[in-house]
């Protein structure tokens, strides 16, 4: 599965994307955040603050309870600021 990071989360994690082998026990976006947080302490730090880390599964906004079954790409980013 491809994981992508944007804006200052990319700087915190130190990379824009990575390929991971999804462990069987990681079933939701929330599980994935926790699992990635163990690998990237500064990502865990950002996730600890409410509402600061948003997620998208295959280009659709997703909440923590969103299942990952069948997903190809999950992205994490701060609240958007375009326009």
């Amino acid at each position, binding site marked *: 599965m491809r994981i992508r990071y944007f*804006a200052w989360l990319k700087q915190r994690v130190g990379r824009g994307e990575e390929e991971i082998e999804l462990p069987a026990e990681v079933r939701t976006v929330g599980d994935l955040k926790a699992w990635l947080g163990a690998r990237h302490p500064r990502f865990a730090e950002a996730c600890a603050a409410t509402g600061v880390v948003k997620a*998208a599964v295959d280009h659709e906004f997703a909440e923590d309870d969103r299942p990952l079954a069948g997903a190809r790409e999950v992205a994490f980013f701060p609240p958007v600021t*375009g326009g």
Partner: protein
Amino acid sequence: MTVRVVDGPFDPWAELAAFCRGRTEAGAVASFTGLVRGEHGGERILAMTLEHYPGMTERQLARLETEARARWPLADVLVVHRVGRMLPGEPIVLVATASAHRAAALEACAFLIDWLKTKAPFWKLEETPSGERWVQARSEDERAAARWER
């Protein structure tokens, strides 16, 4: 194509001229243009870089357009959003709507920019004399978008 992401300068006035050329069925055209400001929060802005999420961006913008067309009788919609590095005074975004009805054009234009600000994956990085900083999301933007929820 009525929704575009461009990675270099664009001319919103030429876009609007083309949008209206030969248009005789919809007399009301509303537009919103966002320009890079030269100052923010008391600090001078030297440049602004717009990062985005290719693929998701186009999908979200197309969805915004679909939603606007479902809510208002629109003859046409145009959304152009620039990404990459740009300078103060340069256009970042253009939203334009055309309708036979003035209220529809104006409301749909406000809706599109309000939703774009909270639902399209763009992030602004400002360059100031004291360094770079990511722009914080504003709660006013969430409130502005919330008024269109139903």
